């Protein structure tokens, strides 16, 4: 029986919940994070968390939530675990309520719920428009309690570098870098989980933090043989404030509270938005999608905005912008329910959104794909997986290594519904703690050789020293910009194989030029340059997984849209893409059948609401 100690890499919602449930099982936790866990990117989530609590008396149920999620994901998600998540969701929300999250409340003092994309029910609990912040603070506080009791050791200001694998490829720990002293050290534990978030830095034009959300940790695992799934499924959120350093998110909840998307009817109308009368406004989402209106799922929303601006040239002032209008909503309501988002628009766009329609455009937002994990079910890849793989939920193809949160791939299929991410992160955390402890209790692992540990640390020392000594001619920051410009342009809402192939060639060129990087900072203390350069290579390798996966998949499904293959092709493509690193720079792809045992795939069209949800509403 292994020592009851686990390592969690990443201190966002998934990692923190993982820590709490592990401590409850009596495990000690080492928690690794770049920055104080309270500052993790989860803090940016705005709109809310889904759970079919049905306090609005609409007849909502976890079954409808499950159907909406599978349908929203264009049937690519393995169904049993999504069902479990949806059925557990009300309990998760109640738990966060008990932890003290300052959720918005109804007149009777109950949790309030609002509507979100891809559903007709009010099932999203929210804390103003800063829900992610309040959720992560509540979890941070609970973990601090365990820290005070000596159950949790935090390694903040540390960066994961590699997994320590023994001779049988069991995961036995990690190597990490102290970002102040720049020293590498080993942390040992027989169960490790990666809760390491998304990879917006690859796109640059993203609502994620391009500084923080590099996807580097997941990519290091991939480079050590951990499988990565559905990388090509990238969510582009329809409404973000365009910007050079970041595209700041304008939450879907703005539309949930009645915000309306429109453009001027006449091309190149130069009047300020507030002066354009109703008759001259084209509410194109409401017109085309009478049932869901402005709350169509994000892949559809982004495609429509893209088409209106890029193809039809009808964006605001002829540019790539549309109006998101809340000026018809009472200011008091906006302040109470959307205050945080209004603040962001005011501060960063420099305009008053209470009296002027906001200007937004799609931006990269989320990675549906992620580290490959199982859920106790069989797969056609069985012969290449460890013997115990079906025994533990959320375990990767490496025994003892788990993953969860945005960095896993399992819950959102080809497109994620809004407010389901906060849910899937917390759900993953709730599953991971007990599963990892059960793994420790049932595993008989060989003694770990000190030589293996030393070699792993030495490898990182050598790589660090090698990068530090680079004196080439490539400016790594400009290299990153070039990658971002190309990826955001050619691997976004609309994808063509010819362009993707050019993009792939570009990535190869950038990888070559990476070898020629120069290091502007050789300080041995708090050195950000060397970390940046190393993580840039990870971004390039992960970009190849995304782009080559997109090239291979000749169909359109959810967020992956190819005008040359505009239909969904279940016969050939109702499969999970599994990418395995070839050791040099290429992903090798194989495909796994999707578990569709609970809901039969049907045509996905949000023009009408012809599915479970509408039937329930019609019955009432």
């Amino acid at each position: 029986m292994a020592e009851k100690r686990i390592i969690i890499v990443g201190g966002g919602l998934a990692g923190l919940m993982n820590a709490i449930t592990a401590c409850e099982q009596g495990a000690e936790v080492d928690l690794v994070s770049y920055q104080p866990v309270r500052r993790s990117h989860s803090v940016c989530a705005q709109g809310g968390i889904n759970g079919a609590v049905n306090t609005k008396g609409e007849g909502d149920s976890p079954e409808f939530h499950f159907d909406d999620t599978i349908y929203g994901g264009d049937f690519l998600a393995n169904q049993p675990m999504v069902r479990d998540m949806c059925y557990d969701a009300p309990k998760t929300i109640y738990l966060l309520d008990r932890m003290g999250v300052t959720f918005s409340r109804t007149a009777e003092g109950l949790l309030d719920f609002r509507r979100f994309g891809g559903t007709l029910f009010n099932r999203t609990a929210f804390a103003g428009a800063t829900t992610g912040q309040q959720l992560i603070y509540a979890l941070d506080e609970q973990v601090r309690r365990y820290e005070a009791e000596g159950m949790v050791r935090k390694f903040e200001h540390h960066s994961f570098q590699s997994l320590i694998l023994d001779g049988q490829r069991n995961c036995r720990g990690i190597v990490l870098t102290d970002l102040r002293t720049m020293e590498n050290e080993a942390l040992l534990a027989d169960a490790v989980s990666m809760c390491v978030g998304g990879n917006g830095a690859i796109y640059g034009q993203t609502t994620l933090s391009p500084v923080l959300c590099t996807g580097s940790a997941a990519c290091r695992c991939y480079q050590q043989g951990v499988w990565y799934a559905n990388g090509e499924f990238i969510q582009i959120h329809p409404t973000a404030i365009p910007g050079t350093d970041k595209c700041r998110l304008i939450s879907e909840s703005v539309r949930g509270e009645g915000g309306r998307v429109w453009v001027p009817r006449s091309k190149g109308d130069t009047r300020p938005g507030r002066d354009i009368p109703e008759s001259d406004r084209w509410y194109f989402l409401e017109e085309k999608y009478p049932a869901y209106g402005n709350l169509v799922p994000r892949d559809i929303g982004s495609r429509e905005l893209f088409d209106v601006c890029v193809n039809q040239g009808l964006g605001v002032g002829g540019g790539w912008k549309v109006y998101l209008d809340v000026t018809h909503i009472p200011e008091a309501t906006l302040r109470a329910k959307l205050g945080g988002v209004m603040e962001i628009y005011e501060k960063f766009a420099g305009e008053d959104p209470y009296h002027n329609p906001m200007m937004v455009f799609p931006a990269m937002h989320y990675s549906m794909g992620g580290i490959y994990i199982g859920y106790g079910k069989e797969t056609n890849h069985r012969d290449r997986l460890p013997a115990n793989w079906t025994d533990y939920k959320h375990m990767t193809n490496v025994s003892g290594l788990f993953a969860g949160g945005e960095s896993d791939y399992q819950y959102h299929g080809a497109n994620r519904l809004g407010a389901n991410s906060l849910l899937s992160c917390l759900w993953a955390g709730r599953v991971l703690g007990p599963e990892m402890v059960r793994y420790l209790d049932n595993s008989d692992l060989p003694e770990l050789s000190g030589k293996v540990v030393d070699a792993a640390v030495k490898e990182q020392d050598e790589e660090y020293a090698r990068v530090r000594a680079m004196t080439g001619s490539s400016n790594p920051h400009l290299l990153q910009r070039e990658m971002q410009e190309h990826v955001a342009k050619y691997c976004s809402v609309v994808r063509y194989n010819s362009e993707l192939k050019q993009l792939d060639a570009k990535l190869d060129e950038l990888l070559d030029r990476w070898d020629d990087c120069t290091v502007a900072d050789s300080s041995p203390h708090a050195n950000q340059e060397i970390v940046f350069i190393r993580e840039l290579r990870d971004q390039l390798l992960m970009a190849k997984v995304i782009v080559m996966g997109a090239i291979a998949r000749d169909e359109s499904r959810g967020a992956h849209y190819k005008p040359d293959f505009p239909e969904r092709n279940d016969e050939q493509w109702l499969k999970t893409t599994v990418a395995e690193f070839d050791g040099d720079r290429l992903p090798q792809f194989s495909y796994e059948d999707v578990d569709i045992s609970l809901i039969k795939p049907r045509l996905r069209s949000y023009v009408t609401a012809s599915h479970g949800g509408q039937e329930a509403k019609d019955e009432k």
Partner: protein
Amino acid sequence: MAEQTVHLKIRRQDGPGKPWYWQQFKVPYTPGMNVITCLEEIRRNPVTAGGKPVAPVVWECACLEEVCGSCSMRINGTPQQACSALVENFKQPITLEPMDTFPIVRDLIVDRQVMFDNLIRVKAWVPIDGTHDLGPGPRQPSKQQTWMYVLSRCMTCGCCTDACPQVNDRQDFIGPAILSQVRLFNAHPTGAMHHHARLDEIMGPGGIVECGNAQNCVRVCPKQIPLTQSISELGRDTIAYGVRKFFTQPDVEM
């Protein structure tokens, strides 16, 4: 603003205990630029205004939209978030300094661990029984949620603590942010079960009595949290508690 470049004056320091020094930079201006984008420009081309190549300035940031509290620094003398500091709102040369009420790590990075340690001192959490299903939490009036929500937005950014003249190397004042969190947790129906323990902590050394009422904190808080109101309410609570405690036998449950 007609300027084509942004002129920055940055206080740098290579490490703890090393001497500090000024460096000046000029970066091209683009509309909507904030201090972080200026620092990113410097990182792309780390050459001083005088033409000397240097190591790029290091700083901390994460969310870039003023919800994480990472990028606190003094800009033209006032502690604030760098991501929301739009260049056009500041007099040039824009001066950047670390919040040196906290130990300096390097350049603009400081170590704010003391704030997290203080959150442990005051038991800044709700003591739940466990994650098992116990149904919803207690009902709370919407009006109460409204003001508690504001307090719950504290990012532990440290601006209030840096601005406070009572937080210095001569005394151990716990600072406004932590005090406001005490008020938040004492107001929550379950959190209130540690009500007395928190008050005991802030009635001790470095506690509420150290507040000198300078009111700098509420002026610099990026989330407009009513810190002075929190401190004033706690002042009243601690007096009432102190008096009751004085007249209660030590072995009697309060």
